[in-house]
């Protein structure tokens, strides 16, 4: 089943290229959507099967004998199958949205979307570290092409270029890590690697390989200081593509890093060292993302920085290296994908209607946006973790995991970051849709890079655009409301962190069944903290809308606050050379954090 999830989208993509010229656009749309829907079915079946033990597939039947194998393995546990299902579902919704959104007559776009899907499925489902590199690059190549797809648009090609260079360099660094691991162990499969490394003492070579692998995957995972490409790519890529970038591609980078850690390295590198490195860089990522998010007035760029902030939170939750942290991050990633994808599609609708998503240009002009007038504030509040959205449940579980691990600052960080990012969205919604606050000053321009509208302005919102938005928000709500989500995530997380079970089941077909948890759900403190962050988000939005008259009276206060902010903004220079310098610096920082003696 798992190989089909990778092969079917590739075959449908090839079919589309073959019949492209002969079929009308509608047929191409239906074909592509059907291909992605088939993947939803495959991954849902794998997810269902994996609940009672990992689904192991040895390609071409090269099964291991006495734990030794020359084959390539796919190991699918509920977390891997879950993120694969998320990818397939988001591609379906993005393709449905694109029926009226993407106007080109040719099927290149659909073909690239399906190849992108195949790359993501392969990356999520494989149990082989070299396959991870290959699928990482497959999804990368499709993503660069999708970013730079509008070749008439100058910023679009430039965003694609920055994205391509940084991510490919990251992939090559990861491949160096793969090579070093192979040199040390002679293995490429994650189960075999786990077995080979289980009794190895820590060595400098292993640390170097680990650092390179983590850096490579976390370039796609947009961890600071590897995150610079993300905002450029999101600002210029078509909105349905941004849905996939923010919703699942970036979390997949994080997934890859932690999958490799848990499958291969949990005993080879001391856990406190790894945890410290991820917590430190996760906090930096979250803070940088949240601050830059408040600074944006291009709505898509703002959402991109909000993704960076949330990825920081995911890295903190996963970096606790406990199953509770994994469970919280899993729920948060799924519901964040729903909310953020819905917001990106709303940005797409705004762009199709008004030709821009600049907050100042659209001030008070979007009062006739119909459905969006209600959905955008809801999206903002959901991003700010208003219960009972799934984001709030994921936040609550992650906060509890942080407090349980002795990090009492974790809840504060989660509340602050979700309030800032949700508040920024609410501010934009208030100014664009309801015309709140003073009109913008002329010449305060600071936009950079924008997606260009395709064709004629959109009069009314067609059902193919409204339904995906409602489905995504409904999905995020369902994650919070449905009973048993917490317990299922907790069980999946326990399987994810069970390194011994991972290799034993893959190599010997035996794994001890873990005791299942059945309870779990909302707690009073979680609901209160969710309400607190939603309330703070409203405050942040209000300050953003009405602050100018206040700060007008205190210009020096403003200057004092502006200086560090402008330095931070200058760092996001859009210059590919700067980004590569930061990548190398981040590599060194990660190596330094992992080599420092533990506390």
């Amino acid at each position: 089943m798992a190989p089909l999830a990778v092969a079917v989208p590739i075959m449908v993509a090839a079919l589309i290229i073959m019949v492209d010229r002969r079929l009308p656009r509608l047929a191409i749309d239906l074909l592509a959507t059907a291909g992605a829907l088939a993947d939803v079915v495959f991954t849902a079946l794998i997810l269902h099967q994996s609940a009672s033990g990992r689904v192991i597939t040895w390609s071409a039947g090269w099964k291991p004998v006495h734990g030794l194998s020359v084959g390539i393995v796919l190991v699918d546990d509920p977390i891997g199958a879950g993120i694969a299902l998320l990818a397939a579902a988001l591609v379906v919704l993005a393709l449905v949205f694109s029926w009226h959104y993407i106007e080109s007559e040719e099927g290149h776009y659909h073909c690239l979307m399906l190849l992108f899907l195949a790359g993501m499925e392969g990356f999520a489902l494989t149990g082989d570290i070299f396959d991870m590199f290959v699928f990482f690059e497959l999804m990368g190549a499709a993503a660069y092409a999708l970013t730079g797809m509008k070749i008439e648009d100058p910023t679009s090609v430039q965003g694609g270029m920055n994205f391509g260079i940084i991510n490919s360099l990251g992939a090559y660094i990861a491949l160096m890590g793969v090579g070093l691991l192979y040199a040390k162990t002679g293995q490429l499969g994650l189960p075999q690697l786990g077995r080979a490394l289980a009794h190895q003492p820590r060595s400098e070579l292993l640390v170097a390989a680990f650092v390179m692998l983590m850096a490579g995957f976390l370039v796609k995972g947009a961890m600071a200081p590897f995150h610079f490409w993300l905002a450029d790519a999101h600002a210029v890529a078509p909105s349905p593509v941004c849905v996939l970038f923010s919703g699942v591609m970036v979390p997949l980078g994080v997934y890859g890093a932690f999958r490799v850690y848990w499958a291969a390295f949990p005993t080879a590198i001391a856990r406190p060292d790894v945890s410290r490195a991820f917590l430190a860089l996760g906090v930096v990522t979250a803070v940088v993302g949240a601050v830059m998010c408040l600074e944006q007035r291009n709505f898509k760029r703002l959402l991109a920085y909000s993704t960076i902030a949330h990825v920081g939170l995911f890295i903190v939750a996963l970096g606790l290296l406990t199953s509770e942290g994994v469970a919280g991050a899993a729920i948060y990633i799924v519901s964040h994908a729903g909310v953020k994808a819905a917001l990106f599609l709303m940005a797409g609708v705004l762009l199709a209607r008004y030709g821009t998503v600049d907050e100042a240009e659209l001030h008070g002009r979007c009062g006739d946006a119909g459905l969006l007038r209600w959905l955008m504030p809801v999206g903002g509040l959901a991003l700010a973790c208003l219960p009972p959205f799934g984001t709030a449940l994921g936040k609550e579980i992650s906060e509890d995991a942080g407090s349980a691990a002795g990090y009492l600052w974790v809840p504060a960080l989660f509340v602050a970051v979700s309030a800032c990012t949700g508040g920024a969205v609410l501010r934009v919604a208030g100014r664009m849709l309801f015309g709140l606050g003073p009109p913008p000053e002329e010449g305060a321009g600071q936009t950079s890079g924008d997606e260009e509208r395709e064709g004629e302005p959109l009069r009314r919102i067609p059902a193919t655009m409204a339904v995906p938005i409602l489905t995504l928000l409904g999905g995020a709500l369902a994650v919070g409301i449905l009973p048993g989500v917490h317990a299922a995530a907790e069980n999946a997380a326990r399987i994810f962190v069970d390194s011994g079970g991972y290799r034993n089941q893959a190599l010997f077909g035996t794994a001890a069944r873990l005791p299942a948890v059945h309870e779990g759900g909302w707690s009073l403190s979680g609901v209160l903290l969710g309400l607190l962050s939603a309330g703070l988000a409203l405050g942040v939005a209000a300050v953003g809308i009405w602050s100018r008259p206040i700060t007008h009276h205190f210009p020096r206060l403003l200057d004092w606050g502006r200086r560090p902010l402008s330095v931070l903004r200058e760092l996001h220079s859009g210059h590919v050379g700067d980004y590569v310098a930061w990548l190398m610096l981040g590599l060194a920082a990660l190596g330094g954090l992992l080599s420092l003696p533990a506390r």
Partner: protein
Amino acid sequence: MSFYPYLVAVWLLVVGAFGIVRSRNLIHAILCLSVSQSGTYVLLLAVGYQWHAKPPVFGEPATHPTAKVVDPVVQAMTLTDIVVSATVTALLLALATQIHKRHGTLDPDELRQLKG
């Protein structure tokens, strides 16, 4: 196998990255990316190499199954890597020609529309 190929591999990776940092032309930057990637080829081949070993082709009378051969796995990986590199380089070069058409320049210092 001696230590030098590994030094060369790391050197290529770093010098390629340095080239991108200092680049004043995107074509140059893309080629620097290829230089970085050459580091991975050198590393992978060095990992599998053995002195006085034969090519990994079995079945010939010259190569008995127990004979010492170089590791074919890393060679396959290098080939895959080269294919990936060709795809990415071609795609990036295509984007570079488009950037030149739209902006009239390939100097990253002058491409300052994506900022902040």
